[in-house]
């Protein structure tokens, strides 16, 4: 805080000095008056910026710096506070199986989520190719409506689908006799014994947790994604399509040669958001599987591991160190992507 005030004052003095030479023709008294008025004016401007500056210094920068500091400490959030140097990091990289396992799961989810981006792209293209502009607008509005529902409500409803006895998932599988197929697969190929009684517990069987996380959100059409792709598609000029028509492009050729290359900026943007989200988010898994990430910690992701280590096991210092590792990973990925996006522009 004190730092900010000092730089501000220094800045004002510098400004006063740089303005002084212009007014050498005025009398000394007048010069002092204008300087004072100018100073007062500038202070009022700094006052206007003060709330923002205060808020981000106290609630954004201070906690971040504090987290860096505590990553070098053994700290329980209250009583124990002891400097340990790099020991937290050595522990994390060298001896923490769960830490590595959580990154393994993140990798699986990243691959799955990369595939789950495609339905949104296809949906946007189909809407874009409708001939009637009015229908395009109607569908755009309709796609927003499910977004209005609080995200947690959507999540909890989906969670109820996976309940073993009452959930929609098992009822659908039973009604379509897909359950018999899964049972056969389980007995003859997988050997998980998860489907034995015909009503698998998707969220509490350690074999089924990762598949559940992958199926989650079927058919994987994200509203925001569709809207952003549509915005990109609308920028494609009619000339390009006409040229494509002359070349006799099929519907797939139109997609792979015109539409996809021209919305690559948007695709990369969504890829960045998806990657950061997958690495960082843990709310979904906390709600689905609880703070331990389900049986045998199968569903543990890095963010959740930090959360649990900190708030449940009171190992704040260690959690801060894990946070640093994740921070560096996310930062470097963002920078790499940022470069890629800029090249395209």
């Amino acid at each position, binding site marked *: 805080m004190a730092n900010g005030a000092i730089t*501000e004052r220094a800045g004002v003095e510098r400004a006063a000095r740089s303005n002084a030479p212009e007014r050498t023709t005025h009398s000394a008294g007048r010069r002092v008056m204008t300087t004072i008025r100018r100073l007062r004016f*500038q202070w009022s*401007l*700094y006052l206007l*910026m003060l*709330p*923002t500056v205060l*808020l*981000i210094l*106290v*609630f954004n*920068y201070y*906690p971040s710096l*504090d*987290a860096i500091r505590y990553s070098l400490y053994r700290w329980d959030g209250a009583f124990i506070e002891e400097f340990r140097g790099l020991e937290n990091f050595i522990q994390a990289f060298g001896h923490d199986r769960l830490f590595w396992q959580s990154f393994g799961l993140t990798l699986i989810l990243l691959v799955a989520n990369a595939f789950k981006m495609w*339905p949104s792209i296809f*949906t946007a293209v*189909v809407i874009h190719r409708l*001939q009637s502009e009015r229908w395009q607008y109607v*569908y*755009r*509005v309709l*796609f*927003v*409506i*499910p*977004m*209005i529902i*609080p995200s*947690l*409500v959507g999540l*909890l*409803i989906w969670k*109820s*689908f996976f309940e073993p*006895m*009452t959930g929609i998932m098992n009822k659908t599988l039973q009604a379509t006799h897909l359950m018999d197929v899964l049972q056969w697969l389980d007995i003859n190929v997988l050997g998980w014994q998860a489907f034995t009684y015909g009503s698998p517990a998707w969220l509490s069987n350690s074999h089924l947790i990762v598949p559940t996380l992958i199926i989650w959100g079927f*058919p994987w059409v994200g*509203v*925001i994604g569709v809207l*952003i792709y549509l915005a990109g598609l609308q920028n494609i000029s009619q000339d390009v399509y006409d040229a494509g028509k002359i070349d006799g492009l099929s519907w797939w050729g139109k997609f792979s040669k015109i539409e996809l290359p021209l919305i690559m900026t948007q695709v990369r943007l*969504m890829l*960045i958001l998806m990657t*950061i989200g997958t*690495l*960082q988010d*843990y709310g979904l898994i906390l709600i689905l599987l609880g703070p331990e990430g389900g049986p045998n910690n199968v569903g543990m992701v890095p963010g*959740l591991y*930090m*959360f649990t280590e*900190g*708030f449940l096991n009171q190992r*704040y210092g260690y959690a*801060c160190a*894990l*946070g*640093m590792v994740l*921070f560096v990973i*996310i930062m470097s990925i*963002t920078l790499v992507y940022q470069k890629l996006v800029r090249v395209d522009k």
Partner: protein
Amino acid sequence: MLSRRSRERTKELIKHGLILLVLFSAFFPLYIMVVISFKDNDQFVRNPWWFDSIGTWKWENWSFAWDTVKIYIANSIVTSVAATAFCLLFATLTSYVIAKHKVPGRGVVYYGLIALMFLPGTAATLMTLFTLLKDMHLLNSLWPLIILGATGGQALCVFILRQFIEEIPNELFESAQLDGASSWQQIMHIVLPMSGAILGTLAILQFIGNWNNLMLPLIVMRDDVMLTVPVGLMRLEGEYVKEWGQLMAGYTISSIPMVILFIFTMRLFIRGLTAGAIKG
């Protein structure tokens, strides 16, 4: 000629069919939510797919759910509205100074804000933030949600508003200055009227973000009467014996405020959602 036209027609129909299929699956959870909200657990197990005859509807699910969630909704409305208002007020003041006055140090403030957009918020900062709030005696009240809601939006709002205010012609401000208008009056009479649409878009974006915020209230709140909608619903869902009908009625009721907001601000809403995703 005719066959070509009819081929075009079939093509259009296929497209509509595909979109409707996707829309169906997007709306399906909401449909199930409403259907089940009128059932007790027996009816739910027997027939989860469709409404029962109207005489057997369990309206008491709704009254029970309303009694439970109304306090969460009130808390959510208070915090989301206040956080959004403070966020936009502070961001407008800062953007005005950065955009229209060459005060020393404005670059530091601006890039200090922009850097936050690239700073991933991990659970580690959540912990240090938690201890900070504890030291400030702000736990278990609505204030931290309002303050942090306002803080969280600063970076994006200043980033967008600065560009917008910069494009307002300088002559307007100069003539106002000649008339002796203070900075505050310039903001009130020039900036605000000219940036109504962008402020609306940002307001909706911030409101949605605050309304859906889960982790912060989860760690900050202890008393049931202080919970916001997401945490309140999460706590209800975690109870051991589940009355699905009441739960689903509660979900439906908690969704209604946003539906109302949407109906009145559809255009801004769609724009806000698209703008929100670009902040990364």
